[in-house]
């Protein structure tokens, strides 16, 4: 598991409504000074930033490989994160190992940073299981597909941590579309009512499938939180440094017991909603081009090259590392076993259930009779 914990402590209150977009690296890779947020990333320059760059490159490479695997029929579906690498990597690396994550389905880079094994990352998308990893092993719940549901789970977990007297923070990821759901709005009320140590991390990628963010919100999404009594930050979601700084600041508040924070990471979904989607029906190619110029990786690369930290040689070695990860990812994916016939009955209940037990035996008898089950019971 990768984390980049910092011990920066700034007591300044967050403005409400949020100030301008927080940005520390502009699209050309120029470092923009920000007295408030700079201290949060004072440890991230040179080699440390190169490390972040490598993470960004690797998760993009994994994403590309997953799309290819889907096209080759090896995955049922894949929700690309292309364009959202900085928002995911920057926020995930800000977390402490004991902090807990409740995400949606798109945060595969977050899961990667959390140390989820590569094949486990795609089990759900290959269709071999309903989830790939044990949430307690990496302190991250498995992907949530029901839009917004996870935000309430995060608030509950956060309140539980406080009851337990630990300073663990909880973070929940969701999209711009999700901000319309009742669950998300309820989660914000609950978090504010109980001062829950939770960070609401909204990746505003401008789209909910085919619906532009303007259908969900008439004002910047970050402006909604203060109405619930939750301070918020609007951050350039394509700027990994700014995302890291903003998330560290929000987590710091949670760890200190200062309650919830809302972060809107303004980014763009450069790919289709999922591999099943056809964005040519609704995306304006000009808008996509504008965002392509704000690429989250290109700006880090430009910055590192300017600083002389990244040479053609290091860039090539980073790319080679990414290719290796992708190859291991592919091999692990292809090796995932298909579920056994009777496995559909597993784990429905934690305690024995007589009705289901009987149905399972019935199906076992049937499968044996038609020769689809060999050997002993499984």
């Amino acid at each position, binding site marked *: 598991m990768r984390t980049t914990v910092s011990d920066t402590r700034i007591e300044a209150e967050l403005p409400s409504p949020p100030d301008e977009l927080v940005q520390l690296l502009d699209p050309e890779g120029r470092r923009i000074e920000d007295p408030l947020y700079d201290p949060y990333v004072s440890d991230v320059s040179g080699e440390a930033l190169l490390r972040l760059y490598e993470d960004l490159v690797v998760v993009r490479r994994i994403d590309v490989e997953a799309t290819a695997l889907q096209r080759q029929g090896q995955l049922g579906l894949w929700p690309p994160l292309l364009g959202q690498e900085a928002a995911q990597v920057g926020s995930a690396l800000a977390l402490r190992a004991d902090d807990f994550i409740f995400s949606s389905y798109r945060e595969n880079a977050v899961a990667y940073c959390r140390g989820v094994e590569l094949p486990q990352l795609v089990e759900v998308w290959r269709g071999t299981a309903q989830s790939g990893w044990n949430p307690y092993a990496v302190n991250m719940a498995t992907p949530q597909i029901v839009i917004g549901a996870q935000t309430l789970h995060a608030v509950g977990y956060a309140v539980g941590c406080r009851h337990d007297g630990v300073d663990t923070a909880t973070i929940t990821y969701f999209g711009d579309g999700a901000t319309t759901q009742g669950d998300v709005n309820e989660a914000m009320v609950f978090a504010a009512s109980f001062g829950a140590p939770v960070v609401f991390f909204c990746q505003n990628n401008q789209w909910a499938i085919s619906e532009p963010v303007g259908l969900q919100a008439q004002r910047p999404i970050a402006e909604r939180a203060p109405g619930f009594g939750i301070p918020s930050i609007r951050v350039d979601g394509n700027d990994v440094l700014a995302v890291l700084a903003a998330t560290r600041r929000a987590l710091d508040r949670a760890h200190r017991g200062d309650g919830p924070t809302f972060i809107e990471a303004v980014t763009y979904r450069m790919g289709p909603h999922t591999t099943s989607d056809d964005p040519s029906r609704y995306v304006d190619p000009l808008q996509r081009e504008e965002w392509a110029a704000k690429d989250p990786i290109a700006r880090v690369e430009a910055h590192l090259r300017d600083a002389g930290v990244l040479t053609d040689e290091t860039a090539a070695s980073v790319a080679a590392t990414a290719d290796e990860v992708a190859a291991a990812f592919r091999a692990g994916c292809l090796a995932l076993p298909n579920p056994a016939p009777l496995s559909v009955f597993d784990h*429905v209940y934690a305690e024995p259930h007589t009705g*289901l037990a009987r149905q399972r035996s019935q199906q076992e008898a049937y499968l044996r009779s038609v020769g689809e089950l060999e050997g002993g019971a499984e």
Partner: protein
Amino acid sequence: MTELTLAKAVNSGLRRALADDDRVVLLGEDIGPLGGVFRVTDGLQRDFGTDRVMDMPLAESGIIGMAVGLAYRGFRPVCEIQFDGFIYPAFDQIVAQVAKLHYRTRGAVRMPITIRVPFGGGIGAVEHHSESPEAYFAHTAGLRVVTCSTPQDAHTMIRQAIACDDPVLFFEPKRRYWTKGEVDEDADFPFDRARVLLEGADVTIVAYGPLVATAIDAAIAAGDEGTSVEVIDLRSLSPLDLDTVEASVRKTGRLVITHEAAQFGGLGAEIAASITDRCFLYLEAAPARVTGFDTPYPSARAEEHFLPDLDRILDAVDRVLGRQNALTGWSAS
């Protein structure tokens, strides 16, 4: 007559409903420029405008709740729930409001709301995209629940659902969206009657939605082995056309019911109980159910181990014919 896929047949039915009655409005997620994730509403926003075909902010409870207000105001909302597993955020509005308003207001307020739901599995989808929640709604007084299995029914029944003054849950068998068939736009038949699709003398198979095609395949396979199977497509799940099933079972004396939904408390249980009641002296064997298991819908690569298929249906046909097999003598649950 034109040949259409089932998805296109719903589309042409919606188009006719929008054209015939300007109080019809469509509400849903991604139903505008995208035309819905299954393209069922393709071209409708372009042709009828954004006031009649509304892309809704992402909240199912909001969609149904707003439809209630529109219905109060005399509109006939047609709501699309993107996938079966996403109807639950709207469950409260459907069960506590849509279903009960006519009763609550002693008939003063009508709720001619149609709720379209692509349902069922078999498409290798991720979690929450393959469910069969029809029994929850059939269990709720005040709602009508129907499903279609052919393009003709899809076209005619969606128009009937929209024209109906009661709320209708309209379940579309998503794995059959690409099935083609002839559609006669002027065809008309009762909305709440089952249909005998194949006549037979020995066994009655009752199916609906996605499994109708599987039941027909089973009947043909059984026919090859000398068993004459009658296949009934229920079409309406609430009300149930038990008269048609009863007439068939009086003739055959044997009943197999199949659905993808879980067995426990499902439509099969209701039909088996009612038909046992009505046909006790005519039955040669206990009715058999071939259903999804009482488990959550499994992951894509396990769905073949979950869904009722031809072999499981034939196994049940054998059983009601008194041929001993592995499941003889097992009472369910």
